[in-house]
C-alpha cells in the first residue's frame, strides 16, 4: 500500500517534468507522427495485399475481363476456372506430388537431422568437430554450384524424376541448417534427465526417442516450420532434377510450366485460378498458425 502511494506521485512528477519544457511541441510531434506512421504503414499494407487480392479476384473473371478491365470486379463468379485449373491443368496432380515429396522429406529431415544433431551435441568422439563443421559449412555455399554434378549423380543412381530421389535431395539440403539449429538446442537441455534415464537402464536410443526428443519439442517445431516452408516452396532443385516426367512436377514448377504454356494457349483465367489454388492453403495455414510460423522463421534467421 505504502509502496503504491509513494510511487504514483513520483511517476506523475517525472511525467510532468518531461512534458513541461516542451509540452505543446511534445504532444504535437506525437500526433503528427501518429498520422504519418499510420499513413506510411497503410500504404505498404495495401502494396502487400493488393497483388494477392487482385490474383484472387482475377481467378473469378473470364479472359476478356482480365484483359479488358484488369482492376474491375468480375461480372459473374466463374468457378469453372478453378475446376479447369485443378483437372485439366493438372494442379490437383501437382498439389498431390508436393504433398508426397514434402511429407516424406519433412519426416526424413526431422528424424535424421535430430539424430545427427543429438549425437554431435552430446557425445564426445574423435571427428565430432569435423563432422559438425562439414554439416554446418553447407549453409553458406551456393546451391547452384552443386547442381550440375548433382544432376549426374542422380542420373547414375536412376533417381531423376522419382519421388524418393527428390525426397533424398531435399533432406540432404535441409540437413545443414537443421543440424546446426538442433545441436544448439540439444546442448541447452539439462544432462541430468538423460543420465537418470540411462541409470534406469534405458538404452541410448531409447533415451533419445523417449526422453530427449520430447524435451526438444519447441526447437523441433521451429525447425519443422522452417523446413516445411522451405521445402514446400522449393523451386531450384525440382527445376533441375525433375524435368523428364510432366506428371511428377511439384506445385511450384507446375505453376511455372502452366504459365509458360498458357502464354500460347491463352487460358489466363485458368492460370490465375491455379495461382490462387497454390496460394490460399499456405496463406490460410499461416493465418491460423501465424505465431508459430513467425517464431519458427525468425528463430531460423537469428540462430
Amino acid at each position, binding site marked *: 500500500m505504502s509502496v503504491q502511494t509513494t510511487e504514483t506521485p513520483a511517476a506523475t512528477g517525472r511525467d510532468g517534468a518531461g512534458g513541461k519544457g516542451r509540452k505543446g511541441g511534445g504532444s504535437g510531434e506525437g500526433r503528427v507522427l501518429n498520422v504519418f506512421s499510420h499513413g506510411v504503414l497503410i500504404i505498404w499494407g495495401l502494396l502487400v495485399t493488393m497483388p494477392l487480392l487482385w490474383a484472387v479476384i482475377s481467378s473469378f473473371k473470364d479472359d476478356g475481363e482480365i484483359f479488358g478491365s484488369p482492376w474491375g470486379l468480375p461480372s459473374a463468379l466463374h468457378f469453372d476456372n478453378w475446376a479447369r485449373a485443378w483437372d485439366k491443368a493438372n494442379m490437383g496432380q501437382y498439389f498431390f506430388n508436393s504433398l508426397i515429396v514434402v511429407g516424406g522429406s519433412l519426416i526424413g529431415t526431422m528424424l535424421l537431422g535430430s539424430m545427427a544433431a543429438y549425437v554431435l551435441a552430446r557425445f564426445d568422439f574423435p571427428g565430432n568437430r569435423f563432422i559438425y563443421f562439414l554439416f554446418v559449412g553447407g549453409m553458406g555455399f551456393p546451391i547452384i554450384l552443386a547442381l550440375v554434378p548433382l544432376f549426374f549423380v542422380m542420373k547414375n543412381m536412376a533417381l531423376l524424376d522419382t519421388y524418393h530421389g527428390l525426397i533424398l535431395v531435399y533432406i540432404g539440403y535441409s540437413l545443414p541448417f537443421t543440424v546446426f539449429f538442433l545441436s544448439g538446442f540439444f546442448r541447452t537441455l539439462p544432462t541430468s534427465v538423460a543420465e537418470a534415464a540411462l541409470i534406469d537402464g534405458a538404452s541410448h536410443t531409447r533415451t533419445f526417442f523417449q526422453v530427449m526428443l520430447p524435451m526438444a519439442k519447441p526447437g523441433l517445431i521451429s525447425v519443422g516450420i522452417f523446413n516445411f516452408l522451405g521445402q514446400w516452396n522449393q523451386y531450384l532443385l525440382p527445376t533441375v532434377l525433375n524435368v523428364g516426367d510432366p506428371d511428377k512436377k511439384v506445385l511450384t514448377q507446375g505453376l511455372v510450366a502452366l504459365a509458360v504454356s498458357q502464354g500460347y494457349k491463352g487460358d489466363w483465367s485458368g492460370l490465375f485460378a491455379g495461382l490462387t489454388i497454390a496460394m490460399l492453403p499456405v496463406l490460410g495455414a499461416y493465418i491460423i498458425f501465424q505465431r508459430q510460423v*513467425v517464431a519458427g522463421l525468425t528463430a531460423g*534467421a537469428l540462430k
Partner: protein
Amino acid sequence: MQHGKYRFIVGFLVIPLAIYAIFVISPFVQAIYYSFTDWTGLSSDMKMVGFDNYARLFKDSVFWAAVGNSVTLLLLLPVVTLSLGLFFAFMLNVGGRRRKKAVIGGVRGSGTYKILYFFPQVLSIPIVALLFQFAYNPESGALNAFFQAIGLDSVQPDWLGDPQIALWCIMGAMIWANVGFYVVLFSAGMSSIPKDFYEAALLDGANRFNTFFRITLPLLWDTVQTGWIYMGILALDVSAFAFVQIMSVGPGGPDYSTEVLPLYVYQKTFRDGQAGYATSIGVSLLIVTLIFSAIVMRLGRRERLEF
C-alpha cells in the same frame, strides 16, 4: 558401455552423413574438379584443360554482364530491403501517439500490420514472380492499366521488356517479397530494448530520429548484420535464380540486362551443354559469396552492447 556408445553414435550418424555426403558434399567437390575440364555434360568424355575455363571467363561479355547484375543485386537489395524493414519496424514500435506515462509507444494495430506484412514470406517464389509478371505486362498488366486510369496514358513503360529497367522491376518483386520478414524480425528486436533508454534520451531532448540512430540501430546491429548476410545470399543464389528465370524475357534478357550468375550457370549446363565451363562460373560465384561474407563480418565487428 563404451562399446554400446560407439555403436549408437555410428548408428545415428551413418544415414544422415551418407545422404549429406552423396547429395551435397560430393557434388560440391566434383564441381571444383569439373571446372578444370572441358566436360560437356552430355557424355562421359572429358579431359583436363587446366585454367582454360577461367581464362575464357575473362573474355566472356555475358559473364561480366552477369557479374555486374549480381553485384548490383548484392549491394542494393540488402540496403533497400533492410532499410525499409527498419523504417516500418520503427514506425510500428515507436511511431505511436504518446500515451500516459509511456514515453514511446507502438501504433495501434501493430499486430495486424505485422501479420499482413509477413504474407509474401510464406508464398513460394514462383507465385510472387508470376504475380509481378502479370502486373508488369505492358498490354493488360495492372500497372499500366493503373497509369491509364489516373490519366497518365503517355506513361506506358515496357517494364520487363525494357533493358534499362528490367532488372529494377525484378528487384522490386524481390524487395516486396522480403521486407515483411525484416519488419517482424526487427520489431522483435526493438521491443526487447529497455524503455528506460528511450525515456532517458527523450528527457535529454533527443528527437525520434536521434533516438533511432543513437539507440535503436546500435542495439539492433547484430540482427541487422545477420539479415545482411541472409539477404546477400538470397541475392546471389536461389532467390535470384528463380526470380530472374521466371520473370525476365529470355530468360536473362532483354539483351542480358537481367542475366545473373546462378542463371548463367544453369543455362551453360542445361541449354548449351558446357557443364565444365558452367562449373567454373559457379566457382566464381562461390568466390563472390565468400568475399561478400568476409566483408560483412569485418564491417560488422563492433563492441557487443549488453542490455
